[in-house]
Each structure stands twice: as C-alpha cells, then as structure tokens.
C-alpha cells in the first residue's frame, strides 16, 4: 500500500510546495500556502503503517518514508501546526518566510517519517536551513547567525555521531541505543542541542522572539519537538535524559518567571516543557514514551496558540514586553481567550490537552516509582502555572494599564487559526479518549477522574494564592537575565580588547628585539646580493689563487 503513494511523502509535498511558493503570485500563493499542509496532513493519515520504502542511495538502504505509530502522532501534530500556522500567516507579506516555513514544516514531517539515520539527518539539516531562513526573514541578522551557528554545531555533532554509529554497526537503521560510546554521546549531544538542553539552551529564547509575528508560530512547533521524537526513537530510557529534562524544566521555569518579553517568556517555557518530555523519554517505559509523544503533541498545539496570541498582540500593538502592555483583554477578546486556553493547557488545567498529556507523564513516573522526578515536576508544574497561567495573562491582558495601546483587530485568518487550535485543545481536553487510537498506551491512565482533577485544582489554586501573595515580586521589569550565551555574545567583546592590551607590551618588546635582527639581515642580504651581482667579475689573480689553493690542498692531503 505504501507503493500506491510512491514517494509522495508529507515531507516532499511540503518541501516542493515551499520551493514553488515564490514562483506563484497573488491568491494562488496563499492557496498553495494553505493547501500544502492540508495535503500533508491528509497523507499522514492515508499512508498505511508499514516498513516503508527502501531507496538505494550511496550504497545505503535508505527508508525516507517509514510510517509507524510514532510518525503518525508527530506527523499529525506537525501537520496541524503547519496548517494552523499557514492559516495564521495568510496575511504575512514576506514570501521568503512563507516558503521557508513550508520547507521547515516539511523537514519536520520528514524527520517524523524517516526510517533511517541518513534520511533523518538530511531532513534534520533541511529543517535547520528552513528555520534559519524563517528567522532571517524578519531581518535580525545577528541573532539569526547565532541560531544558524548553533544548529550547524548541533548538526555536525549529530552527523559525527551518526557516522560513528554507521561505521560501527554497518547499517543506517534507526535503533534504540544507550549513550555508551563516544559516537553515541555525540549523537545524543547533537539532538540535545536541538532540544534546547543545557548548556546551550539559550538559543531558543535568543532566536525565536526575533522572528516575525507569524514566523514564531512555526518555530515554536517543530525544531525542539522533532528532537524529542528522535530521542524517543534513538535513546528511549537513556538515564542521562532524566537529568537533562529536569534541568530544562527548572531552567525554563526560572527564566520564564523572570522574563519581561512575552515571546521570550514563551520560548523559555518551551525549554521547560521539553524538559518534561525528556524526563519521560529518559524513563523509557512504553507508557512514558507514549506520554512524551503525547505531551509533544499537546505542546505543539498550545504553544502554537500562545505564540499566535503573542503574535497578534505584537501585530496589533508593536509591543511584546509585559512591562509596556496591559489591559488588552477588553480590546482583544479573542486573543485573550486564546492566550488563556493556551496558558491553561500549558499549566495542565483540567479539560485542556495539556492536562491529558501531563497526566500521562506523571502516571508514567508514578508507575516507575520515580519519586524524585515526580515530586520535582509537580513542583515545577505549580511554578509553571505561576508564570504562564497567572503572570502572563495578568500583566498582559488584565491589569489596568497606565497607557493603553490602541490595538487593531487581528485579521480573519489569524482569528480562524486561533479558534481552530482552541477548539482542538479543548476537544482533546474534554474527550481524551479520542487520542486512544493514536496513543493506545494511555488508555489505562487516570485523567478525568475526580481525585486527579481535585489534585490538580488544589495545586493550581495553591499556586494562585502564592501569586497573589507575592505579586509585586513578579512584576515584569525591563532587562535581561544572563545565560550561557553570554560566553559567546559578550565575553569576546570584553576579552578581545583586554587581550590586545595585554599582548601589546609583549609585541613591543618583540619588536625591539626583532628590528636590529631584521636590519642586520637585510644589510647582509644586500651585501650578499651585491656580491652575487659582481660574481662574474673576479680578477684573474683570484682564479690563480684558487687554483693554487686547490693544488695545495690536494698535495697536502696526499702528503698526510
């Protein structure tokens, strides 16, 4: 049955559409922009599950299209994100961004469906290119360059790891492994860079907010989640991931609590949420992996929705800093609703998709008796509600604003996209059983049971109490929080001049020593050259002298 669709993979559809996009104009361009994700989404479901199609390339048996359950989960999520993003971005004028966004989405689909390491890597890099162009299209070159370089670094680490894996095992097959050799560590490191794991997590909050109002929606969906997908495939149950995940969850929460800019805040929260997924992947049980996939699915939906809301605010007011916003709820009701749905979903408020997926993760942790992680993540969940469910809506939307910006109503397409995602999130939240065909492993998880709902509500209300109590502390303040990227963004600026100052005396001393030597050398070479110029003008006596010397030498040696 795979044969009947031939090589028509969702990835190919999107990438080709992306390449064609700049060539068509007017309504056709917008139609294509929208139709391609629809077609891709349809293909995700039409492709029958199976071992896929083997292509010979460079002597490697590549399987660029291997539909399985996991591919379908992520394919669906990526498809919905692409569709919603395309709908949302209809009014975006920049064709480069739109084309790149489609290629980006296509590459993500490609990763989802890749059945071997080589095709995986190819799509991995195409994804890096697509996302970089999406960021660049908004014109911030320096951040874009930093983003690109970090991803090239991640890419080459993964590449080296894959090469090591292939040369060790002799095949490009995707198989679950442990990080037990340098090559596999490289592979893991490459994936973790994309997942936003420490120490290089800073790129997420650095780059994503630099994209346009519509570009960020795409960015929030694909790169990190694709990394989670690959981790599920390659490193399920890798213990190191537990700790990486926990660190990311805490990091994301702390930085998000401090952040002023909405989109940066949401970017930090991506890291935090991916941390949840990584913990689940590190756990490695079937349920945990399914939960990780499900959380990725849900996260794609609600984070896209949040980014859409943020993008709408940006488009309407030209501002995304909490400290400069406020009181938008009345003027932008739909955006307010969207942001609340998204935020609540992130915070796992019951009846949202996030509640379903986070419950699955917690259940998996409980099932494996991973007490430490269970308690820690529960605490982080409470903290997450603080920043995204309370702090963000309060300061952006509800608090009385000193100077009220004059928002413009978002375009119909943006509204439609937000409505679509709100609907999806709430539908999943209310009827978790719709996910069972997609993720059968969660059927046994208690989700909308009274005790579980009550538990979650207590947690959320408790967090709300703390929020109200310490509200002044959480007031957004303009500024920035230092991160690891200080090392490459600011350290060189401080060190290089200091280094120059430091080496100047040394160089001066060297020059003092060097100059006479050089002068003497040049004098010598001048004399030498003069000597050579006149080499032919020896006097006869000199020749006679040499002849005599030679004979004398001969005779002398002979006499000895």
């Amino acid at each position, binding site marked *: 049955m795979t044969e009947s669709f031939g090589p028509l993979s969702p990835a190919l559809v999107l990438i080709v559409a992306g390449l064609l996009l700049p060539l068509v104009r007017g309504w056709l361009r917008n139609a294509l922009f929208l139709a391609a994700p629809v077609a891709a989404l349809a293909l995700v479901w039409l492709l029958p599950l199976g071992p896929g199609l083997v292509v010979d390339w460079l002597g490697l048996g590549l399987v660029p299209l291997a539909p399985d359950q996991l591919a379908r989960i992520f394919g669906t999520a990526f498809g919905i994100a692409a569709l919603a993003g395309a709908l949302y971005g209809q009014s975006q004028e920049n064709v480069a961004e739109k084309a790149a966004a489609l290629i980006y989405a296509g590459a993500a689909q490609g990763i989802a469906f890749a059945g071997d390491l080589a095709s995986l890597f190819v799509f991995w890099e195409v994804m890096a290119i697509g996302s970089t162009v999406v960021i660049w299209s908004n014109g911030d070159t320096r951040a874009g360059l930093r983003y690109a370089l970090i991803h090239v670094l991640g890419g080459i680490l993964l590449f080296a790891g894959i090469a090591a894996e292939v040369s060790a095992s002799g095949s490009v097959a995707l198989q679950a492994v442990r990080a037990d050799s340098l090559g596999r560590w490289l592979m893991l490191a490459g994936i973790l860079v994309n997942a936003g794991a420490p120490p290089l997590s800073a790129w997420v909050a650095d780059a994503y907010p630099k994209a346009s109002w519509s570009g960020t929606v795409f960015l929030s969906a694909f790169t990190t989640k694709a990394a989670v997908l690959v981790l599920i495939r390659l490193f399920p149950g890798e213990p190191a991931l537990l700790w990486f995940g926990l660190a990311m969850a805490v990091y994301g929460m702390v930085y998000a609590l401090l952040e002023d800019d909405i989109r940066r805040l949401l970017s930090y929260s991506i890291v935090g949420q991916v941390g949840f997924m990584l913990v689940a992947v590190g756990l490695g049980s079937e349920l945990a992996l399914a939960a990780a996939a499900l959380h990725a699915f849900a996260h794609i939906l609600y984070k896209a929705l949040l980014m859409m809301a943020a993008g709408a605010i940006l488009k309407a007011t030209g501002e995304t800093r909490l400290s400069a916003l406020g009181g938008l709820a009345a003027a932008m009701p739909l955006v307010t609703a969207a942001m609340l749905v998204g935020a609540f979903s992130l915070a796992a408020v019951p009846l949202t998709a996030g509640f379903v997926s986070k419950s699955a993760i917690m259940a998996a942790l409980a099932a494996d008796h991973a007490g430490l992680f269970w308690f820690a993540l529960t605490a982080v969940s409470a903290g997450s509600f603080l920043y995204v469910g309370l702090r963000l809506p309060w300061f952006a939307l509800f608090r009385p604003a000193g100077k009220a910006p004059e928002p413009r109503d978002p375009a119909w397409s943006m509204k439609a996209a937000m409505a679509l995602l709100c609907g999806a999130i709430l539908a999943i939240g209310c009827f978790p059983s719709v996910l069972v065909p997609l993720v059968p492993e969660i059927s046994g998880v208690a989700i909308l049971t009274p005790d579980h709902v009550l538990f979650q509500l207590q947690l959320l209300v408790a967090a709300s109490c703390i929020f109200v109590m310490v509200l002044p502390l959480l007031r957004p303040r303009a500024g920035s929080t230092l991160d690891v990227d200080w090392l490459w963004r600011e350290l060189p600026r401080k060190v290089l001049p200091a280094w120059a100052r430091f080496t100047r005396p040394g160089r001066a001393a060297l020059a003092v020593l060097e100059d006479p030597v050089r002068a003497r050398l040049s004098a010598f070479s001048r004399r030498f*050259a003069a000597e*050579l*110029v006149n*080499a*032919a*003008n*020896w006097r*006869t006596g*000199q*020749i*006679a002298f*040499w*002849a005599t010397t*030679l*004979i004398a*030498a*001969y*005779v002398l*040696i*002979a*006499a*000895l």
Partner: protein
Amino acid sequence: MIASHLPVLLIIVPLLGAVLAALSRHGFVAWLVALLASAATMAVAFALLWRVQAEGLISYRIGGWAPELGIEYRIDAVSAFIVVLVSAIAFLTMIYARRSVLAEISAERVAWFYTMLLLCVAGLLGIAATGDAFNAFVFLEVSSLATYTLIALGRDRRALVAAYQYLIVGTIGATLYVIGVGLIYLSTGTLNIGLIVERLASLQGSRALTVAEAFIVVGIALKLALFPLHAWLPNAYAYAPSAATVLLASTATKVAVYLLARYLFTVFGGDIDVGAIPISAILIGLSVAAMFIPSAAAIFQNDVKRILALSSVGQIGYITLGLALANQTGLTGGLLHLFNHALMKGAAFMAIGAVVYRAGTARLDDLSGIGRTMPWTVAALTIAGLALIGVPGTSGFVSKYYLILGALEAGLGWLAILIVASSLLAVLYVGRIVEVVWFREPAAVARECREAPLELLLPMWILAGATIWFGIDAEWPVGLAASAARVLLGGAP
C-alpha cells in the same frame, strides 16, 4: 679505405678547412668552406659512432708507429659520444654563424673568424680522439688559442679583457696539466694512455703519481670552469661573438669534462679516489657549490648572456657531480647532462644571439615584451630555459632524474634533495627572463624588432626541438651515455 682512416679524418678535415678558410680571405667563401668542412666532420663523427657501436674500441696509429713511439688515436664509446656531440654542434653553429657574424664582426676579419672556429673544432675533436696524453695537451692548446682569438673578436671592448683573462687562466691550466703529464711520464716512461694504464697498475701509491693527479685535475678543472675556478667564463661568453659563444658554451667545457673523466676513470682507475686524496668527496663538494653559488649569482645579473654563462657554470656542477658519484647511473646522468646541456645551452645562446642580432642588446631591461615581436626566438629561449630548470618533458629532466637516481643509489639522499633544490635557482633566473620577455609591455627596442631570419631560427629550433624530443624519447642519448659510462667504469665498451 676511408673507413679505416676515419679517426684521423676527424681532425684533418677541420684542419684543412681552417687552412682553406684562412687562404680564402673572403668572408662568404670562408663560411662555405667552414660549413662543408663541419658537415664532413659530422659525417665522419657519425660514421665513427656507428663503427664503435658495431665493433667497440677503434685504435688508429698515425703513420703506423707503435704506441710507444707514435701517436695513437683511440675511439671508444666515450670518445665517440663526445665527438658526435661536438661535430654536430659545430655544424649547426656554422649554419647559424653566417648572418650573425656579418652583423657582429667587421668584414675583413670574417674569414679569420671561420679559421679560428674550425681550428677550435679541430682541437676539441683532437682531445676527444687522441689516446696520447701529450697530444691531448697539444690539441688543448690549439683549441684554447683559437678560443682566445674568437673571444677577442667580440665587438665589445671588454671582449679583449675577457680574452686576456682567459688567456692567462687557460695557460695556467694548460701548464698545470702538462706538469702532471710530465710527472706521469717520469713514472711510467710513456705518454700513451693505454700503456700508462698498464704500467700504473704496478705503481699504486706512488707520491709522484698523486701529485700528478692533483696537477692534472686542477688544470683541467680550470678549463672546464669548475667552481671556484670559473671566473674567466662569464665574461668570455658574454663578450665573445654570438656564434663563438654558442660553440664554446656547448662544446669547450664539455670536452674538458671528457678529459677529466678520462683521467679520473680510465687512467687512475675506476675508483676515482687515488691514494689518500678523496677526489670524490672534494668533487662532490665543489659540484654542489657550483650548483648553487653561480646559479644564485645568475639571478642577479642583468645581461642575458651573463645569466646563461653563469648558469653554465652551475650546470657543469651537475656534470661533475655525475662523475663524482662514480656509479653507473650517476655517471650516465652526468654524461647525459653533458649532452643535454650542450643542446639546451646551444639553443639558448643561439636565441639570445638572434635577439642581439635584431635588438642589438642582451640587457634584460631593454628586452621587455620582446616575445611579442620575436615569438619564435623567444619561444626557443623559453624551451631551453625550461630544460635548464629540468621541467619534465624536456631533456633536462631526464638527466637530472638519472643524477637523483645515482645519488640515491650511492646512498646520498641529501644530495638528491640538493640537486632538485638547486633547480629552484634555475626557476628564478629563467623565470626572471621569461617574465620580462613575455609578460611585460614591449619596450621601445622590442617594438621595433622583427622575427629573426630563418638562418638563425633553423639551427636554434633544431636544438630546441632536440631538447624537447630527447625529453620525451631519450632512449638514444641515454643509450649513448650509458655505454660511455660503462666504458669509463671499466666494463665492456
């Protein structure tokens, strides 16, 4: 009948030619005589080569006297090799000489010039052909005296000074040589080389002999311009008439090398270190010095003729290095380089002579862009230059290849590196010429020039063509050089 008298004909034909040319007193007639005589000589030389290859050693006793009393001419593979080279170059020089000489020498001296040219050739051939140590001295003097005159005929006033210097140095050299021969005669009682070899076998370790060798080697070294005894050469070549320079550069030093090889190998035995004298080591040292120092000096010259002359001194270093290595491959390389260098330097001096013929100068500064107006001439010069560097595809490469191989066979890896490293100096001086003549905008002089006449181009291109030809198919010269080397090392002829 004639065939049996070939060895002596080799000398007699040019001598007779010289006499006729002197008697003719007319430039053109003298030239014609010289041309015919050299053509005949060349024919004789090739016939000799053919006979040597077929029969081996040819011994010819003048007047039928026994070696003890009379003079013996001995033609073996080595002599034949040299004889062919000298006579062929001489013939080409004659073709080249007519127009060149007309332009450079006043009309009343032209006949005199050809006389001297033929005398010189006769002397050089005689050295190669004779089997008698003193007779070799006589021929050496004949050729030298002719050479002094030839140089002195140069248009430039400095030619006289150069000729005078050469006269003094040459005389010193000849004197040292004859002292050495005298010492040998005192020890062995004979001047015939064949007999000397026989009698020396019983005289190993004699002091007198050692001293004799010292005198002979240094004497010949003066003639072949071995560094540091080379200083007479650059000015002599630079100021002599172009045609004379061609002949001298291609043959005179080569014949001296032949004589050196004769003494080192044939007379004093295959092991060229005689007694306590490490001739091999000294010769290697001097050869290496020759490869570097004069070549480096060449880079700084502004007169193309002087560049080429100093380059000759350097190239002689390679040849003597081949002798010093004293193994089959190395010696083959040395002799092959002798042959190849004659061709390439001949072509180069012919080319620069043609340039002088048209432009009136050999100063590099004045020759900017002359390749634009004299492409064929300058192309020949370039080919010769590439061969001097040792670019593969030219004959220079093949001989250097054998030298490197010889050095490696002797276990002297560093020497192999030095051989190629010194080629870099050639890259510099040749590159300098090439850059100026091809890649600069034409100067005033160059713009007014026309291509050289066919008479100059023809012999020049025969030599340049041979340089390329023997770079691609070197079987013939390699065969000649290899069999000569075998003879010198005491193997079968």
